[in-house]
């Protein structure tokens, strides 16, 4: 008589330490080997798109803050770029420079959280707090500029809510030489640790064509070895003026496109962001940051799909205007939402612990997945 066996269904989440919020994963397991992953979303659904239809254009900006709350600045950026395209207005040089600096600082801050929590997923607690110490410095820079630490509402259609603080340039310049050695320290402590490499190399390998077919973007796509960055490939704002590299996964310790590659792409991206900030910080032109803000934002009838390179990937805003003061339809193409759909593909045949590692390497923010 054959022994009766059945697959074990393990519910991971919505309350689980390493699902990065309220994601629920339904794992079908055979022993500890994952046969199938079914993500269930929506526990953090806050009806952003419905809200946006009832708001005027400037009022939507605080709501965009709350989608990817670890990269609010960049969500503002994406939205204002889209609305400015719809309005057909040109913003002053000074605004563009400040936006780029803020955006790159935000990218570093967001990646620091991603890297720190990834260490936490793997079981290393300490790098998480070291990353948060550095992130705190960036948040202080934001705080002196716009008064908020997390949800900024800083970039407005046509301008900025505040000009930069007189101390901002000096403090940012101090931050760059402080931060470079910290990246090295993180590499020594976590990135090249043998246990960490063992845990992440050759895990969750994502081939390039699968990644593109699934619409993956950002570090997830670049980790697969595809040189793709909207700042270079589809430039917006003034990114075409700066000199920086696009780091891609090279399979340094494992296969191209594994978790370690995605992780290391983020580490390298922080260095590239520092390079952009270095180039921009000395060249901020003078001017008024609010001169181009329209008195009444009432775009003509039309629609636009505009995308920016959010720290998590391609953040797209599809806005339809019916000629009134509030948008007719706003659809957000959230990078985490799209990247998360690859999870099932990547984690088949791995262990439970690897699912945690793979999920962490995608770097999702549930506020953005569920909107």
């Amino acid at each position, binding site marked *: 008589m054959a022994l009766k066996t059945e697959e074990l269904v393990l519910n991971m989440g919505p309350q689980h330490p390493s699902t990065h919020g309220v994601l629920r994963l339904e794992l079908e397991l055979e022993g500890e080997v994952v046969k199938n992953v079914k993500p269930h979303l*929506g526990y953090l*659904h806050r009806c952003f798109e419905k809200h946006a239809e009832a708001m005027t254009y400037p009022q939507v900006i605080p709501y965009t803050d709350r989608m990817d709350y670890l990269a609010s600045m960049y969500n503002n950026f994406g939205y204002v770029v889209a609305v400015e395209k719809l309005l057909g207005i040109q913003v002053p040089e000074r605004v563009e420079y400040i936006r780029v600096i803020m955006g790159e600082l935000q990218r570093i801050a967001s990646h620091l959280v991603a890297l720190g929590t990834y260490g936490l997923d793997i079981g290393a607690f300490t790098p998480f707090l070291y990353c948060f110490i550095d992130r705190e410095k960036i948040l202080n820079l934001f705080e002196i500029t716009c008064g908020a630490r997390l949800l900024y509402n800083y970039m407005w259609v046509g301008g900025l809510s505040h000009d930069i603080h007189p101390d901002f340039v000096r403090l940012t310049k101090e931050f760059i030489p402080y931060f470079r050695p910290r990246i090295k320290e993180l590499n020594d402590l976590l990135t090249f640790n043998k246990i960490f490499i063992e845990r992440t190399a050759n895990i969750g390998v994502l081939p390039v064509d699968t990644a*593109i*077919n699934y*619409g993956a973007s950002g570090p997830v796509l670049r980790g697969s070895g595809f040189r793709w960055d909207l700042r270079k490939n589809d430039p917006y704002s003034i990114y075409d003026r700066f000199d920086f590299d696009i780091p891609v996964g090279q399979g340094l310790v494992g296969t191209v496109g594994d978790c370690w590659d995605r992780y290391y792409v983020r580490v390298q991206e922080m260095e590239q962001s520092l390079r952009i900030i270095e180039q921009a910080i000395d060249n901020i032109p003078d001017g008024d940051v609010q001169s181009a803000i329209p008195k009444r934002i009432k775009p003509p009838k039309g629609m636009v*799909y505009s*995308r920016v390179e959010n720290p998590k990937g391609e953040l797209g805003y599809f806005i339809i205007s019916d000629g009134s003061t509030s948008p007719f*339809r706003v*659809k957000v193409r959230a990078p985490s939402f799209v990247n998360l759909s690859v999870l099932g*593909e990547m984690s088949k045949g791995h262990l439970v612990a690897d699912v945690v590692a793979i999920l962490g390497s995608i770097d999702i923010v549930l506020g953005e997945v569920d909107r």
Partner: protein
Amino acid sequence: MKNPQEILEILKAQFPNLEFQLDASLPVETFIIADAMAINKISNFLAENEELLFDSLMNLSGVDDANGTKVKDEEGNETINGGTLSVYYHLYSTKIGHKITVRVSTARENPEVESVENVWKTANWHEREAFDMFGIKFLNHSDLRRILMPYDWEAGYPLRKDYKNPEFYQGMKVTY
């Protein structure tokens, strides 16, 4: 790099018995209007054709066009009868670097669109979202369930313009 006009010509040459239209009336973006029941075929062609190679679906979004007749019932609730729901496909070719927007429209009462999931896997969740929010049924979709709303949400499709907030959800009072 091809502009929408050229892409339209290629499409017309490939599918002579289907209707295509180029809508350039709205500023910023021009889009091709295609047939909802042939979108799978068209997508396959767009993704595979050597000249087009649209290998990436940037975004898929449902839109309530709200172009039907608005009807008010006794209690003052407004519903929309007739008109269309649309699905917009924003395509991009990572190899060539051109973009195109395709729109298909379907009747509001029985909205049905062919799924493009087998062409771009990313469409799976996007289509689920469009189903969730607008009730657009994607034919041949492998797993058409609600995605963001609760699976047992019975109060309709929230992003339709005539959606009414329910008073109760599963017997629980919903406070706003």
